[in-house]
Structures are given as structure tokens and as C-alpha cells.
């Protein structure tokens, strides 16, 4: 039986880029990075958000980067770290999931998706170890077998962890982790019981808090109409929160 793995197909046809070996040139190279991404589990599913800024050292390179990427009808990947690698990993994961569904005539299981992402991260280890291509994603999906949204995060080696209530990674994550814990533990309504409006307000305000204290995280800019990317992962599928909705919260 032929492999149902998209990476195997690319390798077989000679289309998979060669793995990068360790070289001693990291000091001369400054990668583009800097981000805050976060996900919270709420009553209807999961909300995933990311700021729009990409930085290189103390230079803002781009202010309209999309860091929350749909993978299929049930899942999104939020990326922090080196955009070049992160986008490639997201694209490879998206293609792997689609290829499996079309070739095998069934959806890839939740564990299969998690494992695919884990393998992609592990393949990137040499780049991460050189300090130029580290990627720490958050993967949020709707588990139809249990009818709930789930949040997973990874380490550099590809280990998978499930987050129960919320998860945040990137350069601004340490600033809001405590705030998220506080809101969940002592706030009027725990994250898991929040309705869509409350959860959306919370996630957008957390991102703004991170932007206030982390220069590598971009805040919203009402003049240039730059708003964070926020996606809903719910039983009715994936949807992007509109700019109008974000504007009503951020003013």
C-alpha cells in the first residue's frame, strides 16, 4: 500500500527541501521574530488571537503579518517565532491534512494531526538550535468526538501538551500569562464559562496588554486600521472575527 503521508510523497518525488545541518553562522544572522499569540477555551469552543507585528532585533519589519492560520475546517495554527519556517510548517501541515483526507477518503484523526505537527517541528530542530528558525506554535481545534474545543502547544523538540483553559506563547506571553490566570481563577466568570462576547473582549484586551509592555508585539492601530487576527474554532467551523467586531471592542 502506498504511503498516505504527504511528506513521504514529497520525499519520494524529490520535492522535500534538504534538512539543514548545524552550521556556526548564527551570530552573523538576525532572524525576523517577536510575537504574542494566545488561545482561550470558552463556552462555544476556542478563540485564538495573534498580533500583527514582525520584528528583527529592535526594528519593526512588518505590521500586517497573519499569525493565525486555518489548517482545515476544524483547526487553526497560531505561530510564534521565525515566520519563514512557521509559514512553511503551517503550509506543510495544511497540505498533509488535505492530502490525507482526499487520498484516504477519511479525515485525519486528532492524534494524527498532532503527530504530523510534532514531526514537522522536530525536523526543524537544527534551525531552532542555531537560533534562527525556532517556532513555538499553538494548535487549536474542535474535537467532534467530544464536542469541545481543545488547545495544544509544543516545545522546540515537538513534544505535545494540552492546555486546559488557556495558552500563550511568544515574546509577550510572560506578560499576560499571570493576567490570564488571574482572570480565570478570580474573575467574575471563568474563561470556560464565558460567552462569545466576553471571551472576545478578554482575548483582545490581553493582546493589547502584551503590546503595551513588549516592543515585539504590535498593538492595534486605529489610524492604519491594523487589528489583531482573531479566529473562532467552534462546532460550526472556523471563522475569522471581523474588523468591525474588533473595532467595537478596541474603539
Amino acid at each position: 500500500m502506498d504511503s498516505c503521508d504527504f511528506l513521504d510523497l514529497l520525499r519520494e518525488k524529490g520535492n522535500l527541501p534538504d534538512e539543514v545541518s548545524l552550521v556556526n553562522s548564527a551570530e552573523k544572522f538576525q532572524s525576523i521574530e517577536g510575537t504574542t499569540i494566545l488561545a482561550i477555551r470558552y463556552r462555544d469552543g476556542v478563540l485564538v488571537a495573534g498580533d500583527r507585528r514582525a520584528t528583527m532585533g529592535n526594528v519593526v519589519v512588518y505590521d500586517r503579518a497573519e499569525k493565525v492560520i486555518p489548517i482545515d475546517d476544524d483547526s487553526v495554527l497560531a505561530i510564534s517565532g521565525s515566520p519563514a519556517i512557521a509559514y512553511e510548517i503551517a503550509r506543510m501541515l495544511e497540505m498533509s491534512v488535505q492530502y490525507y483526507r482526499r487520498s484516504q477518503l477519511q479525515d485525519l484523526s486528532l492524534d494524527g494531526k498532532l503527530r504530523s505537527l510534532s514531526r514537522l517541528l522536530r525536523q526543524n530542530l537544527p534551525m531552532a538550535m542555531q537560533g534562527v528558525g525556532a517556532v513555538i506554535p499553538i494548535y487549536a481545534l474542535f474535537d467532534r468526538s467530544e464536542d469541545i474545543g481543545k488547545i495544544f502547544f509544543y516545545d522546540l523538540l515537538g513534544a505535545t501538551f494540552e492546555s486546559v483553559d488557556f495558552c500563550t506563547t511568544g515574546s509577550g506571553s510572560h506578560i499576560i500569562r499571570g493576567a490570564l490566570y488571574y482572570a480565570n481563577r478570580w474573575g467574575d466568570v471563568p474563561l470556560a464559562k464565558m460567552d462569545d462576547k466576553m471571551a472576545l473582549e478578554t482575548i483582545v484586551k490581553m493582546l493589547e496588554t502584551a503590546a503595551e509592555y513588549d516592543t515585539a508585539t504590535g498593538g492595534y492601530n486605529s489610524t492604519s486600521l491594523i487589528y489583531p487576527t482573531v479566529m473562532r474554532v467552534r462546532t460550526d467551523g472556523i471563522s475569522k472575527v471581523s474588523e468591525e467586531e474588533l473595532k467595537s471592542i478596541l474603539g
Partner: protein
Amino acid sequence: MLEDPYRWVEAVRNRREYLEDQLKNASPVVAVRYIDGILLLTTTPGPRKVFEIYNQISFASIGHPADIEKLRKLLIDVAHIEGFNLSASDVNLSRLVNFGIAPIIKEAFDDLIRSPYLARALLAELDPVNDGHSFYTVDPDGNFEGSNDFAAIGSDCSIKSIKSYLRRYNAESSFISAFDLALRAWACGRFAVDDKSVGEELSDEDISSFLRQQIHGYRIECGVLERQAPTTSKFRLISIDEMKVIIKEAGSF
């Protein structure tokens, strides 16, 4: 013996006759455009015959299930490698047929010591760019033909009958009307397997009566490419429950 040119031609002719003979009883596949997309319809007693290949491309085939599977896998592999190396917008039906599937089928057909692909294929693309065709049919000898409004595969007499019925086709029709038209066209094609009447010669009552008699024991399979689908992938296979509602609404038999 194949060094002799006459024998080679004879062997090719034998091959062609063999393939046509093997496909003559196949349940035809009918594809039509409607206002919101494309519909592919057939009936099958067993294995699935209508598939998704890429975001806006679908595939249906008659013939040996193992050969159908080989062709389907080939198309999916080519489309996904192209989509990965270039972009999703560079994957189109014209290139898949011209440079992907047709040369491989032709090569197998010409290789007289190998088994040819025992399959006739129909491919559809939603809203092709660069004036490309919406449909392609590919014969077991690798010959292919493009069309824009409708297409069918089956035995030679089935195709003739279906195409004559589909003169009633209207691209502005609703999904339900297109479903009814495709199902009736399928009946014309199936009718022609035993009786050589062509579609336009059959009355609506003949077709309804034939459908009532023949449809039992078969599963109607219908795949759609929907322009308004919110997802990247535009293909959807109609579920059994949905099919019951559609058949009732269409009132085809």
C-alpha cells in the same frame, strides 16, 4: 509477433474492442453545470465512483475499481505536489489532463505486454481560468475531450443517448432541476445499454418508469463542486439523508 506492423495494429484494435466490451455494462456518470456549481451523478451497487481531487477539481470514473483507484491516486499526487511547489491557483484541470493523466493512460494502452487501464474518466473543474474547459473525459486509450456545459462517460451508446437527452440542459437551472436532469440523463444512458434508443426518443414517462424499475439495488451517488462553499475545498459528497430529501423534492420517479 508484434514486430510485424500489421499484427501491431491488430493487437491495438483487439485491445480497444476488449476495453469497450468490458465497459459496455457500466453505470454511466453524468456531469452538468448549474447556477451555483457543478454536479456529478451516477449510481453504483458498491464502490464509490465520484471523488475529490483538489480544491475545485473532482473526478469520476467507470471501470475496474483497482484501476480507478490508481488513476485517482495519481491525480491527487500530481495536484498536491503542484499545489505545494507552486500555489493552489496553479493547479488546474487542463494541465492535470494534458500533462498528468492522459499521457500515462496512453502509455499503458500502447504497451501491448502490459494491462491497459480499464477505466474511462470524467474530470470537472469549477470556474476554470484561461478559458479552460469545465469538463474533460479521458478514454482508456488516453484520448481526451473537453467540454463546457455537460459531459458523460459510459459505453459508447450510453454516452450518445445521454448527450442527446442533455440538449434540454440549462446552465441557469437550480441544483434540484440539475439533479433531476442528470438523473434522467443517467436513465437514458442506462436504458441504451440494453435498448439502443437514444435519449431524445424517450418520453418522460418512459424515463420515470425505467427509473422506478431500475433504481432499486443501486445507490445514487452525487458529488457537487459548490461555488459558495465557505471552505477552500469546494467539493462535497451528498449524504444519504440529504439524497432522500433531494429525490423527494426533484420528483424524478
